[in-house]
């Protein structure tokens, strides 16, 4: 398989900029630290010197297309990993951006790494990280730690659902397959607990929420221009005492609003500064939808009808939904 490198992507971007196909490139650039990669917009070949591509480039660019396609008269170049293409299709289904204004380049992905897992092994004080098959971490205490990439893959990449691109204009490298993934294992583990244990678990997780709204802002399915949680007339827009229902309500509603449209890209858990496993809420809805209404993968094809805007006369009753599990 052709190895995707930074230079290859920059070369592609420069040639598309120069032949006038696109006038804007969505890519990644370095943040404050090596592992702190941030999404960026590049408008010309010169600025592409800041472009980076390594194992920390997890950001899903689909949502950025909504605002950026409105700013260009030409096309926007976007690099999409397989999981990003599902969000891309889902947004197209919802008519959130103009497909004609996007030039999508599919790039294969062998998983992104999670800085928190690296830090757990290397300790604090990371000065420099070199990515590759083996990850080399240098600390400010002049220590060097070698880590296997497989040991520090992000949770969503360990349980990757698909290496197949479902949308692109051009593909670099080879396309993969839809995988059999164990992504519902943790949901099942929670389901097998007693109600009290489940309540304890979620109380512990969700009471850490600081209501920064990062999960909402990053989610490619959350694209309302006005969000219900931004309503100052409602008392639900800020942080409440840790033992109150407030944060649970926020997270239930957040997950409910994307139920049936969530492609399970895992961005919510990636950006959470409190490391709350938010994907477990979304996956519960996905698992229930699969069980109750038949298997459905959001974003697999453009124009498919989401389960919550559909019905059959034979659907199960809400009472049975809880009993029948």
């Amino acid at each position, binding site marked *: 398989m052709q190895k995707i490198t930074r230079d290859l992507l920059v070369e592609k971007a420069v040639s598309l900029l120069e032949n006038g196909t696109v006038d804007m490139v969505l890519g990644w650039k370095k943040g404050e630290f090596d592992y702190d990669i941030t999404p960026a917009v590049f408008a010309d070949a010169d600025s592409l010197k800041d472009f980076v591509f390594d194992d920390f480039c997890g950001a899903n660019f689909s949502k950025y297309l909504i605002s950026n396609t409105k700013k260009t008269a030409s096309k926007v170049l976007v690099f999409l990993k397989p999981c990003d293409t599902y969000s891309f299709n889902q947004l197209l289904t919802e008519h959130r951006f103009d497909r004609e204004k996007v030039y999508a380049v599919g790039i294969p992905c062998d998983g992104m790494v999670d800085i928190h897992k690296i830090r757990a092994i290397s300790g604090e004080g990371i000065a420099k990280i070199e990515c590759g098959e083996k990850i080399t971490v240098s600390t400010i205490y002049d220590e060097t730690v070698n880590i296997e990439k497989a040991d520090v893959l992000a949770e969503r990449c360990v349980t990757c659902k698909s290496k197949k691109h479902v949308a692109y204009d051009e593909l670099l490298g080879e396309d993969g397959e839809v995988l059999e993934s164990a992504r519902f294992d943790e949901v099942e583990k929670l389901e097998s607990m007693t109600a009290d244990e*489940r309540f304890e678990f979620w109380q512990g997780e969700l009471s850490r929420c600081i209501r920064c709204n990062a999960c909402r802002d990053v989610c490619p399915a959350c694209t309302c221009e006005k969000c219900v949680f931004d309503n100052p007339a409602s008392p639900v827009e800020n942080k409440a005492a840790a033992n109150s229902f*407030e944060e649970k309500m926020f997270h*239930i509603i957040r*997950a409910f609003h994307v139920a049936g449209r969530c492609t399970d890209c895992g961005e919510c858990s990636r950006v959470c500064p409190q490391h709350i496993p938010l994907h477990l809420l979304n996956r*519960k809805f996905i698992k229930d939808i699969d069980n109750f209404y038949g298997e459905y993968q959001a974003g697999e094809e453009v124009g498919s009808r989401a389960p919550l805007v559909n019905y059959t006369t034979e659907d199960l009753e809400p009472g049975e939904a809880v009993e029948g599990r």
Partner: protein
Amino acid sequence: MQVNERKPLIVAFCCNWCSYAGADLAGNNRLSYPADVKIIKVPCSCRVNPMFILRAFQRGADGVILCGCHPGDCHYTSGNYYTRRRMALLFSMLDYLGIEKERTRVEWVSAAEGAKFAATMNDFAQTVAALGENKRLEDLRCKK
């Protein structure tokens, strides 16, 4: 019987066309159901957003019941079919978070079923009273 026995507060969302008329019929027929059931009329059961239910709990309800037309009889043809899917997912999620599943219920009550309405409310009020005060869904900021 204790004098100051705690009474559960129950919120019932009733659709305008079937269940609210069912409640009226129960009243006309002088059938009794607990006064702790507070009815909120909605145009259709699918008007009920999951947030309405959670907000009711947050503000001190001990149980929330949603009543609509029987599937197939919706005044707007298909509203209650959507409700059915939404509530199935919401109730399953509440259970996943360890919240007592007996506190929420969906019941289909037609305009002719006054007796069913009264029986449903009596039964639900009993179930909720047995569970005791709602602690897992409360928000102290909303308590007076």
